[in-house]
């Protein structure tokens, strides 16, 4: 008998379709690439009968890219997350329902913008 959490729908390969994909915000502005995925925990060293399969909790970005390529793992308090629940569309790029500025992951962009780019004359204007 199927577990109640299994629903009908698309089958995806997390590696192929989720990792390294572009994340776009509600206005199609690029936010980040998916550097890694956060999965929900399952208990170790115990029987898995009746335990639900791990689900994706959030998309990760930032330092996790370096650790994904070279090994290691930054502490989970340092992860920059895009919650899975905010995802609205999943094609060749992933679309989320928030504006880029409202997402936690976009803090480097906001920092550079506020401290460097906005200080240079013409930074806030459209190209003429």
């Amino acid at each position, binding site marked *: 008998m199927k577990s109640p959490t299994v629903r009908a729908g698309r089958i995806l390969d997390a590696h192929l379709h989720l990792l390294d994909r572009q994340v776009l915000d509600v206005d199609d502005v690029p936010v980040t690439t998916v550097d890694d995925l956060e999965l929900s925990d399952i208990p170790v060293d115990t029987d898995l009968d009746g335990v639900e399969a791990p689900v994706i909790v959030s998309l990760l970005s930032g330092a996790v890219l370096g650790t994904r390529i070279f090994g290691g793992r930054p502490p989970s308090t340092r992860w920059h997350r895009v919650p899975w629940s905010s995802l609205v569309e999943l094609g060749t*790029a992933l679309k989320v329902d928030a504006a880029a500025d409202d997402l936690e992951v976009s803090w480097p962009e906001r920092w550079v913008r506020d401290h460097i780019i906005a200080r240079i004359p013409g930074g806030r204007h459209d190209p003429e």
Partner: protein
Amino acid sequence: MKKLFAVALGVLTAIGGFVDIGDLVTNAVVGSRFGMSLAWVVVVGVVGICLFANMSGRVAAVSGRATFEIIRERLGPRAGLANLGASFFINLMTMAAEIGGIALVLQLVTGIGPMLWMPLAAFAVWIVVWRAKFSQLENAAGLLGLSLIVFAVAVVMLGPDWGELAHQAFVPTVPASEQPSTYWFYAVALFGAAMTPYEVFFFSSGAIEEGWTRKDLGQERVNVFVGFPLGGLLSLAIAASAAIVLLPQAIAVTSLSQVVLPVVQAGGTIAFCFLIVGMLAAFFGAALETTLSSGYTIAQYFGWSWGKFRRPAKAARFHLVMIVGLVIALGILLTGVDPIAVTEYSVVFSAVALPLTYIPILIISNDPDYMGTEVNGRAVNALGLVYLVVIVVAAVAAIPLMIISGAGA
């Protein structure tokens, strides 16, 4: 009528934008030392860039995604990072070469320089990248770059022995004063100069900047298949001018001032003025393209917001990367290194990096996930595979040839 104008503009900017300092210097050096016996490499290179620029433009127009975004998605972060590192490094070298070229041209006009002009040139490049609209900068640089046609005019005015030139081109032989290893080294360098990797990144990102869709593919094909070959003819004219004037006098080109002499001999001060305008436009345009490419590649790998169509505040890290890139390129130049030497190394390293750029394009343009029904046809794939072999051979042979021939000494 308006459509015709748009088509003409596209073709003309493609011609004018084809030649950069790598093409100019390498073709002049080759013409002055080998005559037209390396002309076949230009032809091979032009066919190659037409093939791959068309592929990358099509990928961008159909999938709406730029090349580097897709490289990471399809080949993984490790391969993407290696690709990014190599591409960014070579891009930086090319940026330094182009900015150095601008400074050298200003030296030809004023007799002052060139170190004085380098910061000015770098600043000018930045200010245009910061403020000007994408299409404006492309069109202006491309149209003014057409002035380089003065090379073709000069060749005709010099009244050469066409039979002799044709013989050198169609029956290539290594001149007695040169070694075979030097000949093949320059073949690889010329190939790298014609098939500049940054062109592909720039072309595909530019397609997104200008909002190309399937409808624009026709225009894009005309730009590439008419514009680039005519640009290739211009490269051959540069080599021919050096072959006609400099080769008989055993003058081997080592500086930009020598490249100019054949045109001056043919058409005097007026030709010189056209040449200056053309070179400034070509080098400035290429400096803009390489600067933007450095921004595109890094921003697209990390998924940052990018594009000239966005105001800088909306693509902050993209602009920061370009500012840092320009500062580093300027730093390289201010160490006093000869910009011509930087140019020659940049074209050789471009040849080494070619597989990194072109293998992904070939793979992605065959992927129905991105291309839908517009995947490569069999003829394109066959030609693409042939070129892949040529590119890998050139890339592998580049460094050994450089060492054996002493970098073409």
